[in-house]
């Protein structure tokens, strides 16, 4: 542990910025609020800033420091919600452990964080394949047979192509998820007509799983349990909105087919 109170102004700024950078990566990639706050505090305390204080919301970090001995520092970072990359969360967590063991200088920490921030995930091909396999498995889990699972695999692959190339770069969350639900239902009905899958319900249930907001839902509950009600509410609202949008997409296409086919489809 470094001596408190005798850091130069420049050093202090560097420590606080490194701490915020770590918090930024954690928050952006699906960590709980409590973990973000604790990591920022740990880094600041280790490098000898006693007066730091941070306030973390689901999409922003506010950090200040300043006392008789330490310079005043304040910074706000807005962090838009993006995808979940748990490998980055694990990497920052590991880094924070190693910092406490005294392995790095502030400069090294900042370099490491910059590397973690752009850490490559799985290739798009792998993601699409995983989505297909996941859909097939969940279709089987909820009662589908082998043919249904095959259909769910195809739909899962197409759905994730849609998510990667249309929905996440171009569409808002609401429209993207309604579109996803609609696409899944439409494809399942088509495959059913082509006799590739037999039970349309199980096919759809399996195939909507990649869109189900498991991360937002679970993190919302954990934030509530830790007493972070504002972030918990925002994340829960996010999860409910996505749930609702998927259901809307499914319902929309179903009622459309209902109209055209006079109920024969269902």
């Amino acid at each position, binding site marked *: 542990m470094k001596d408190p109170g005798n850091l130069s102004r420049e050093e202090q700024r560097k420590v606080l910025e490194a701490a915020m950078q770590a918090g930024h990566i954690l928050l952006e*990639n*699906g*960590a*709980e609020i409590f*973990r973000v706050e*604790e*990591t920022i505090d740990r880094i600041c305390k280790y490098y000898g800033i006693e007066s730091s204080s941070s306030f973390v919301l689901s999409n922003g970090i506010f950090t200040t420091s300043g006392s008789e001995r330490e310079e005043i520092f304040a910074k706000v970072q807005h962090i838009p919600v993006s*995808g*979940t*990359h*748990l*490998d*980055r*969360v*694990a990497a920052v*967590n*590991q880094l*924070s*452990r190693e910092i*406490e063991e005294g392995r790095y200088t502030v400069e090294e920490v900042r370099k490491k964080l910059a590397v973690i921030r752009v850490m490559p*995930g*799985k290739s798009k091909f*792998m*993601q699409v394949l*995983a*989505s297909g*396999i*996941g859909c*097939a*498995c*969940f279709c*089987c*889990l*909820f009662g589908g047979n082998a043919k249904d699972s095959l259909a769910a695999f195809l739909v899962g692959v197409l759905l994730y192509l849609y998510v990667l190339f249309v929905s996440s770069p171009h569409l808002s969350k609401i429209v993207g998820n309604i579109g996803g639900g609609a696409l899944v239902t439409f494809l399942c009905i088509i495959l059913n007509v082509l006799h590739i899958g037999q039970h349309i*319900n199980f096919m*759809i*249930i399996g195939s*909507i*799983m*990649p869109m*189900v907001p*498991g*991360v937002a*839902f*679970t*993190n919302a*509950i*954990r934030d*509530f*349990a830790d007493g972070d009600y504002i972030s918990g509410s925002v994340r829960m609202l996010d999860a409910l909105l996505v*749930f609702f949008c*998927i*259901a*809307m997409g*499914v*319902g929309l296409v*179903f*009622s459309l087919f*209902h109209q055209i086919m006079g109920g024969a489809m*269902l």
Partner: protein
Amino acid sequence: MMFLVEIGAAVVGTMAFSLLFGVPDRYYPYCGLIGGAGWLVYSLAAIRYTEPTCALIATIVVILLSRLFAIEKGCPVTIFLISGIFPLVPGAGLYWTAYYIVTNELDMAASTGFMALKVAVAIVLGIVFVFELPQGMFRIILGKGKKKHLGGN
């Protein structure tokens, strides 16, 4: 036989989804194991109990396992928890609710909707209660010394 296929599907499905969430490669088997265990408990409980009870019991098992693995491996519990809990999230309930609304069977829609809500509440209760258990307890189970770091939480 069908039972084994389902467990296998839960294991592979959980692993596939953990890839989508960017879980580091070396943890896939653990995620799969947790997902499989959760579904096993859920199916066994389903013989006697109603859906929300099953979800509660399965959630408790999933979170206990996630916390154990998190301490054992020294990484954030979120990694194991999120993928492991996925098979229990009421995606199917959500679908049937939308389906019955569209087919205009509103009483069925209401009952499946409420059932999905009850399952969600059961999962919430499971998560909240198991996270209240002290960290030290898990360390003792694993026979590890007292080293307080966030990583295991």
